[in-house]
């Protein structure tokens, strides 16, 4: 098997705005045929990362290789990258058809090429019926589809999508997530996609990178990264609900917490350091479960129950600490959990993952 070609390679990219260092010696490569998602909280530098690839921003240091070639001197228009910007604006005085065709018209493609391209992407995004409408005759979701179609109209091998579903309502996002994944597959191209929404990142990505502290902390298939996070930022943020951080210290092979201690396997690096963080995913905080083997057990007060339909997030407080438990809605655990009620909780030791200096440093032992 030949190793895949990196279509995009960021090499030691740094970028600051004044004193604000946004990207800090970041290296990261996107292979051909990936749905590559950069996940990061707002202001983490996602847009800057994409704009550097597009040639719309310039790094202070470092190089971007595009299709194996240093792109520093290539003008944005010559980079052959389809682009769906974050804040899209359709031309109000142009039809949907002309809006989608805009980029192609500007670069003087032939009429036939443009017609073919517009109809192809309109078909993919299920907006063929809307081509002769004006933007003000479209719903919010339809406008978003047109904006995505406009970005995809350019026939190329690489598309950059900057948080295109932000602000859309829930049901529209649900549909567009499936559509985007299938569209990329149908085109057989590469997507580089930025989002601040963990659920969206996990649903879309063939590979996901966590952008935090100016670098890609970790990059890999979402299921692997979710199950075996190597970096604190990954486990803390690339999930919904976010992971719980427990107050914990480590000494002599034990994780000590306000709810007792459990044995752990600990890397040398973490032993005796003060800077150890302990994370637990909400689905591992069991309510009303009988303690079984090594676990942290305590009593917590129910602060709020958020009902997502299929599951509920139970917000808890114990020993001054707030944390959440994620429970399937048909679970008997939820019975009689009124606000302010006391509930027993159990956290199995192996659900506790330790990090030191941002790096995975151990785990509890059940």
């Amino acid at each position, binding site marked *: 098997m030949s190793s895949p070609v990196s279509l995009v390679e960021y090499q030691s990219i740094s970028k600051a705005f004044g004193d604000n260092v946004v990207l800090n010696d970041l290296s990261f490569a996107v292979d051909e045929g990936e749905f590559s998602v950069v996940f990061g909280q707002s202001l983490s530098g996602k847009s800057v990362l994409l704009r550097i690839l597009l040639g719309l921003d310039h790094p202070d240091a470092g190089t971007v290789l595009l299709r194996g070639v240093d792109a520093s001197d290539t003008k944005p228009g010559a980079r052959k990258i389809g682009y769906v910007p974050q804040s899209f604006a359709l031309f109000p005085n142009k039809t949907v058809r002309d809006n989608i065709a805009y980029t192609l018209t500007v670069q003087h493609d032939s009429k036939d090429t443009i017609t073919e391209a517009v109809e192809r992407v309109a078909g993919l995004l299920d907006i063929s019926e809307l081509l002769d409408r004006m933007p003000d005759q479209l719903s919010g979701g339809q406008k978003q589809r047109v904006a995505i179609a406009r970005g995809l109209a350019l026939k190329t091998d690489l598309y950059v999508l900057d948080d295109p579903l932000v602000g859309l309502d829930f*049901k529209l996002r649900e549909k567009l997530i499936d559509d985007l*994944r299938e569209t990329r597959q149908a085109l057989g191209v590469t997507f580089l996609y930025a989002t601040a929404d963990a659920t969206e990142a*996990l649903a879309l990505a063939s590979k996901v990178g966590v952008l935090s502290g100016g670098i890609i902390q970790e990059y890999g298939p979402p299921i692997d990264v979710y199950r075996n996070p190597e970096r604190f930022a990954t486990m803390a943020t690339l999930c*919904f609900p976010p992971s719980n951080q427990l107050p914990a210290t480590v000494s002599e092979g034990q994780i000590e917490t306000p709810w007792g201690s459990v044995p752990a396997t600990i890397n040398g690096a973490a032993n005796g350091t003060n800077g150890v963080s302990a994370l637990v995913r909400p689905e591992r905080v069991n309510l009303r479960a009988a303690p079984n083997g090594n676990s942290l057990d305590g009593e917590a007060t129910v602060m*709020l129950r*958020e009902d*997502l*339909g299929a599951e509920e997030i139970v917000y808890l407080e114990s020993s001054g600490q707030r944390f959440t438990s994620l429970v399937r*809605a048909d679970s008997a655990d939820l019975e009689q959990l009124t*606000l302010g009620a006391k509930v027993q909780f159990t956290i199995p030791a192996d659900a506790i993952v330790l990090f030191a200096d941002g790096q995975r440093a151990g785990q509890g032992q059940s």
Partner: protein
Amino acid sequence: MADIRLEGLRKEFDDGAVVACRDLDLTFKDGTTTCLLGPSGCGKTTLMRIIAGLDQPTSGRVYFGDKDVTDVKTRNRDLGMVFQYPVVYQGATVRENIALPLRGEDLTDAEKTERVDELISLIGLEAVADSGVTGLDSGNRQKVAVARAVSRYAPIILFDEPITNVDPDMKLQVKRTLRELFSRLNQTIIYVTHDQTEAMTLADEIALMNDGAIDQMAPPRELYNDSASRFSGWFLGNPGMDFITVDGNRELVQAIVGGPLSDSVATLGFRPEFVKVAVADGSSGVLATVKHSAVATGGQMLVNLQSGEVAVKAKLPWNTTLDVSPGTTVRWSVPSERLNLFDANDTAVVAPADA
């Protein structure tokens, strides 16, 4: 008492080209928090504006208790309102803001102070009670607006997407405050939102609105578990229900249901979290190929399955050990008590067993 009753309420725009409310007959129960939930453009904000007296209906009547208020001005309707953007008086303190609506009330100064203190503690504004509102964050500012709206203890309070513009990290706190407030106050509350989680979390009853009509009105869990329509099944849930049309898939649907279908059934629906998925070796269940698997809420696995032309989503528990990598063949089934049947009008068909 102050239930809110709508009789044949209709609202048209553009000479009838747009109908925002389609002849609604509806009662919002006294002392109940009802969330008016629906997609953008469904007419929920228009309906609330008519109840508030900010818009006039094209036809139909609005009653508060026994009183016909259709032609009564907003300021005489004895209600409180909370909007998307908090309405507070800049330059006044939190305490002064909350006290302001009490000025014309028949209360002694001591009673007014007591009322304001009660609200400050109920809404959790103790720490900022004597601060100006100008410096408050979006969450506290909206809390002040809520306290102002309820301070007269008017029998009816209307909320129009009050959390939408609160900063994400403050939203939870405001939700918790509202949840507590709603359970303590005995007011009739209508709360407009497009967010199903917010509605499921805060409501005693949800009135689900679609295209100017009330699709279903029920307590949150009942609405989720017993969808009265395809719309309700689709709109609630993340993702919403799976649907299989009988037309073209009769044998498959019969296999899932485990028996013959009545003629009225046009669509089978079920929720992804109730789909059981197992290895292909077994003999029961529908064969399918895994098209895609992704980590979803709380580490659950959201699996896209393909059985011939039929696509189905299944949400498996976080600790599933089943191999669901793309291309794998599996079998799936749905327990009969989790099946929903809909007729050609997309309305739920009551199963013989339930009738």
